């Protein structure tokens, strides 16, 4: 952890956005190690990041609190900036959100989708300029 911190702390004001929903996911209810079984919460990640990293701004975006048009524009711009061909509109927004939330963006770069990573996984992805690997969805 410390070796990551030393280089990351040199960066000026890293902005971390956590897009999420207040709706509870039912998950598939299985007991394997798929992404449905993760116990890591948004709140824990944010608290842990705040403790471990300095000069960061963490913003939580609860999608229900954002106007639909604004959310669509924001997401489409985010996908464009990240070189993804995915776009959303009113008809496809709900489905798309169900597949990508929780979504973690660091300085406009998508770092993690569909699950909350551990702090170490996220810091590793930032350090290596990659994305957090997705867990399988078994069911």
């Amino acid at each position, binding site marked *: 952890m410390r070796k990551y911190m030393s280089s990351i702390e040199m960066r000026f004001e890293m902005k971390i956005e956590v897009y999420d929903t207040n709706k509870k996911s039912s998950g598939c209810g299985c*007991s394997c190690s*798929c992404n449905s079984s993760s116990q890591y919460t948004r709140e824990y990640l944010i608290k842990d990041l705040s403790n471990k990293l300095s000069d960061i701004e963490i913003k939580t975006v609860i999608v229900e609190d954002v106007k639909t048009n604004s959310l669509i524009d924001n997401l489409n711009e985010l996908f464009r900036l990240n070189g993804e061909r995915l776009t959303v509109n009113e*008809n496809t927004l709900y489905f*798309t959100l169900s597949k990508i939330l929780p979504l973690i963006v660091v300085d406009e770069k998508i770092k993690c989708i569909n699950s909350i990573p551990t702090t170490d996984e996220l810091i590793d992805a930032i350090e290596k300029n990659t994305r957090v690997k997705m867990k399988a969805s*078994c069911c």
Partner: protein
Amino acid sequence: MSLSNLTKNIIEFLSVFDKVGIATSDDFEHLPNSKHPNQMMKDVKSAIVFVQSNKSGEMGIFEDYFSVIASQNDVVNYLNEFGYDAKVIDSNDSRISFVTMGVKSGVGDISPVNSLVVKGIGLTGTIGVILTNAPLNKTINNNKTCINCMRCLKVCPIRDVANAKGDLDNCACGKCVNICPV
């Protein structure tokens, strides 16, 4: 746009998936009301079913995940352009059986542990469904895929008899997945 071209283009949009099939309203006729897709869309005419292999144990590489979502959005937008309704069904929605849709569309066959067996993919597939009121052409696939080797049943902790319901609360989730030789 003819229905056959509409169908062909939709299958092309979904080419990122390993297998695509289409079930039509005739296939839904005998489904009980509690599992009928018209609960989710009035005048539903077709179910577009697609399966992606998950043999690696990980949902492909990250970039593919976006393509998978994008291709489904493309189908919805395409059908909307022609005045049809289309809806991607949430995989957690239990009002329809994805496995039944997979069998009805000819994408695969039902296994002794009640999951979908798809040729070349076995039981590792993740199934998706789009319902639409567009009267698409039914795809023809070979339904008889399961070779009844019963390997999946032998490792199943909740079933002793093929196609028994079992106590899903105790499903160990995944023991059967990679054992299928199909």
